[in-house]
């Protein structure tokens, strides 16, 4: 492992490095991650393949042969390809603007959700657990502004922060074997949306007619790290209308 200022460089195998700047989930760390992602993607180094952001770290995937073949005379003194990659990343990081740029606008994405009933079979249970009415759970869930920290676990699945602790509820004891795509759930203090039909243990409070994974579009995920999300309650009629539009 190498270190540059407060950034750790941890090898993740022989073809990628994890750049980590903390070990928690917080917004200022997230802003740093987003700024570094932007820097890496706009100023790719020779041999870099792709970067994957998470809460507190970014994985940089590289082709060791391409890095090795593109070494500068100074870089030839390095003992390992990993050292060359770290040196290139340090150079990039040292050019990170100190001040937070506002040029990268944070998108706010509104996700329509039909709460309760067949769409959210666990809404009552969550309400009971929290000592609230179903309407109160919906009102708290729709009043929040959620930050997408990262996409992972499944294509298009957002890890979001910002849910009110008043509607936190534990996972189901027995996971469901099939959860429909678009299901909106709560697990502990987290809320999320399942992009694909999958088994899972989240408490389901509603469902969105929006497709979170859209492989035919240029950006295959409705959401990306750094987006803000707002949920908007719709009724079953509106849900079906949305679905029809999507189908047509």
């Amino acid at each position: 492992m190498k270190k540059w200022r407060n950034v750790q460089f941890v090898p993740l195998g022989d073809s990628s490095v994890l750049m980590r700047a903390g070990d928690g989930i917080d917004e200022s760390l997230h802003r740093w991650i987003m700024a570094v992602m932007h820097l890496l993607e706009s100023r790719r180094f020779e041999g870099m393949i792709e970067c994957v952001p998470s809460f507190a770290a970014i994985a940089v995937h590289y082709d060791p042969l391409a890095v090795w073949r593109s070494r500068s005379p100074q870089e030839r003194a390095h003992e390992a390809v990993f050292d060359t990659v770290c040196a290139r990343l340090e150079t990039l990081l040292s050019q990170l603007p100190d001040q937070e740029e506002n040029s990268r606008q944070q998108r706010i994405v509104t996700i329509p959700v039909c709460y309760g009933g067949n769409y959210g079979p666990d809404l009552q249970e969550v309400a009971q657990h929290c000592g609230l009415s179903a309407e109160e759970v919906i009102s708290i869930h729709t009043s929040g502004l959620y930050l997408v920290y990262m996409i992972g676990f499944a294509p298009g699945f957002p890890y979001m922060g910002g849910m009110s602790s008043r509607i936190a509820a534990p996972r189901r004891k027995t996971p469901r074997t099939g959860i429909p795509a678009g299901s909106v759930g709560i697990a502990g203090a987290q809320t999320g949306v399942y992009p694909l039909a999958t088994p899972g243990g989240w408490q389901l409070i509603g469902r969105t007619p929006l497709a979170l994974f859209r492989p035919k579009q240029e950006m295959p995920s409705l959401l990306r790290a750094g987006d803000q999300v707002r949920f908007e309650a719709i009724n079953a009629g509106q849900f079906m209308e949305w679905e029809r539009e999507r189908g047509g």
Partner: protein
Amino acid sequence: MSLTMIKPGLFATIQDLGRYGYQKYGVAIGGAMDEPAARAANWLVGNRDTEAVLELTLTGAELRAERDLWIALCGGDMGAQTGEGEVIPLWRPVWIAKGTHLAFRNYRTGCRTYVAVAGGLEGDISMGSSSTYLRGGIGGLDGRTLRAGDVLEAKPITGRTIAIDKLVTSPSGGLKWPLWHAGGFAVAPREVHAVRIMPGEHQHRMTAEAQRGLYERVFRIAPSSDRMGYRLHSDVSLKLIEGMPELISEPVVHGTIQLPPDGNPIVLLAERQTTGGYPRIGQVASVDIPVFAQLKPGDCIRFYPVTLQEAEELKLESELDMDQLRTIIGLKLYGNK
């Protein structure tokens, strides 16, 4: 029409070298499990290594050539034969006549065989790749595993025509092949496969006994293993030290060895998820990842430690070897013509 799938066998998909650049959206890389075998198969029929190939699993597949074709079979040995019982050799270009029946049902070694066709197989291209990604329902043929009756198309050949000197012709006349081959690039069969690994960042979350056990025990491939990951069982599960703070999700890569609470490690492979929250106790050296592609449930492995620098050197050497293989195959295919 190029090939008709008469029977898919255990599991058959179209794969290329994977889908890069979309992990940040949670999209798996995917692609051929045994990358060197898939690349070699493509080169052997004059394709670029990025063309789509057929990935067959274990046994049972049957195909029919709908026209005269150059094909190459690389990877595991499933005892490929024609309808007349003629053996189809592996790791070399093979000319097959229209109507030839190819059956893969005399399993010998390995777990995955690649079938490359001159020109490259057609597949649904999604995000720059035609690799079948089952979870995402994209790539290959409608994003699914292949079924009986599926027709596989090959793209027109754009490069030079293959002109190999001194071909051997099978008794029926239905097959022709050269004597040379690239079999040296196959994963060799072993009683217990040696897999070289680097320490994982969270290896110290294991008990001292488990840290020793990782290198001392023989692990068996569990039946629930698939293209996403191989699950490993040994006599005793590897224990994590209790009461450690939970990890937050971080990116994972091919060859990451995760240890879930049940104590049975998982080696992440081609169609792995992009991030994970289990402790990472080790990391397979890239050059040994194809070993897993050729292991079937019940097969055994043992881990041996290497340093990052050693793993890098192995990787660079193997890439240079692959470069050389490509050059030599090119000379053999086109000769002086």
